[in-house]
């Protein structure tokens, strides 16, 4: 019974991804201006014709649609139009792990700081710490990632020279600090707010009073009962958080020159590198959908009140 539900949900991903693909494909191919318009020397018409034939761009649109799709499903996204000697899958294979590491680091920072912050705010409700934390959260939510990154670069790198101003040396180097922190700020703020309000709600309930009147020590009450229940809604926003990190990476990677998927995507926009654009959109769409799916599947496991009757 549960497996049927799981299978149904996984299959539901397919129309969504198809929709994403179709929209992106249509938009990209309707966009006037081909991939070779941005080269420095104007390319003579017959050479353009041959280039188009070589890349399969002269076939009717619907055929390009299905061709690309059938190849993409097998993991072959074709050659990049800009870096012509490399295939898109290769480039993505190189850049995706970088972004993944950065995202993981950001997620870690956001969780390790955001959730305890939220818990402390709730526990010392309306105290000065609460106000400070709330202010930080609202500030974090209001500041877009490129602002954070630029300000951090300005402050920490240019003025104080604590960290380098750009580049990437792997996740353990000091070059990863600014990108990871800037990427983590918004999710951290969101997590702090959600944890706080969720915990506040839980602390007021009847079953908390039961737990205390049972004679449980306060720590046990907090950890064993309150937190476990408060964390549930927080998990539901995990999907949003992941999407935010994904989109935030465009800006952060571009500013800090991190060779990740985000920067690659931004570059491919101006270069009209269709396969890259479509490939990245599909990849990110898939990642976000899958993480939402995982959240959907895990949540009922943690909260038995949510029956399997979906």
């Amino acid at each position, binding site marked *: 019974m549960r497996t049927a539900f799981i299978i149904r949900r996984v299959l539901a991903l397919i129309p969504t991804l198809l929709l994403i693909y179709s929209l992106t494909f249509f938009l990209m191919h*309707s966009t006037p201006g081909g991939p070779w318009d941005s080269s420095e020397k104007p390319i003579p018409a017959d050479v353009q014709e041959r280039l188009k034939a070589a890349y399969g761009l002269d076939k009717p649109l619907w055929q390009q649609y299905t061709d690309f799709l059938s190849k993409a499903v097998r993991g072959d996204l074709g050659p990049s139009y800009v870096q012509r000697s490399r295939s898109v899958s290769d480039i993505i294979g190189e850049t995706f792990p970088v972004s993944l590491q950065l995202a993981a680091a950001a997620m870690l920072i956001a969780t390790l700081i955001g959730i305890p912050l939220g818990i402390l705010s709730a526990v*010392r409700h309306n105290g000065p710490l609460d106000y400070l934390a709330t202010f930080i959260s609202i500030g974090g939510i209001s500041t877009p990632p490129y602002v954070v990154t630029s300000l951090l670069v300005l402050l920490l790198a240019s003025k104080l020279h604590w960290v380098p101003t750009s580049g990437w040396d792997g996740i353990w180097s000091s070059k990863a600090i600014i990108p990871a922190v800037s990427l983590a700020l918004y999710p951290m703020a969101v997590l702090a707010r959600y944890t706080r309000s969720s915990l506040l709600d839980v602390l007021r309930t009847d079953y908390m009073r039961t737990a205390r009147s049972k004679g449980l020590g306060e720590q046990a009450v907090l950890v064993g009962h309150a937190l476990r229940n408060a964390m549930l809604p927080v998990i539901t926003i995990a999907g949003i958080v992941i999407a935010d990190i994904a989109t935030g990476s465009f800006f952060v990677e571009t500013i800090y020159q991190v060779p990740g998927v985000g920067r690659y995507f931004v570059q491919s*926009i101006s270069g009209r590198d269709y396969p890259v654009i479509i490939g990245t959109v599909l990849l990110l769409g898939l990642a976000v959908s899958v993480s939402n799916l995982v959240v959907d599947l895990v949540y009922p496991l943690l909260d038995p009140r949510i029956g399997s009757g979906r």
Partner: protein
Amino acid sequence: MLAEPAALEAAPVTRHLPSALVARTAPAGLWSQAFRRLLRARLAVASGIALVLLILLAIFAPFVTPYDYTAQDYGALTQPPSQTHWLGTDDLGRDILSRLIVGARISLAVGLVVQAVILLIGVPAGLIAAHFGGKIDTVIMRTVDALYSIPSLLFVIVIMTFLRATLATAHSGFTQALAALDTQSGGLIGIFIGLGLINWMPAARLVRGQAASLKEKEFVEAARGVGATDGRIMAQHLLPNVVPIIVVTATIGIPQAIIYEAGISFLGLGARPPMPSWGLMIAEAIPNLRSYPYMLVSPAIALSLTVLAFNISRRRSPRCPRSLDGTVVHGRQAGCAVNTRRSGG
């Protein structure tokens, strides 16, 4: 006598907590409560005033700017803040303060117009889905769900690329007119359309949820009994009742639109130079970060403070009424933020 209930209300939670945790939170006396309330009110008032000032600034921008925001003074390139140029000049000799003020205009215009577009698409969609139900409802909501699962910024970028290129090579009369309008507005029309197209889904969902719960009420049945047409029911009966939800969505959507616009302008897909969108100013400032850091600071702070002011002064979406066992009572129908799990940050 007034002190008692107030004191209880202020510390319902801390009463039960271990001494170690409570130690710092002294029993909430009357003075500290009053102080806290004053602080909170003052903060909201302060941000409200800031917003009003911003709006005034935006409206009267041409009269307030010390210099023309496009005037390039080649004798005063990249000047740090000084007596003549309070915030300095950029790399083309333009006064940053003036550009900042005009940027306020752009940001607010974008926030409002995009929200209007969103409502124009989303509200009817939600109303129609709720009112007719059945197949139409399923179709509309499935589309909404599918579009919802795409991270919005990603899609904004894709659509803006498409729009920009199409407008640049306009052929037919309509697109040419649109393109002319777009160039005149410095790329703003494109932004309005693009952002509006991406973000109407949450509004549609909320409206549909609210309207669907209203559908069962008696006044709708009565209206139908009197012979009201579908359109009339939707416009005159359902619509006024979904207004509160619309207002809440709008107050969240405006700062969101501002951030989006700055983001796409930053990437070069939004406002076109010389339009001084704050995002564009930030983008232009980054290559000069090391030598002329002040170019970055003003627009960055302006942007953050504006969005901050919006976020502080808007009424927080009411927490969902819960019964004491923790289950949510009215859920989405109450217009509260219960299950807002969705992608698309």
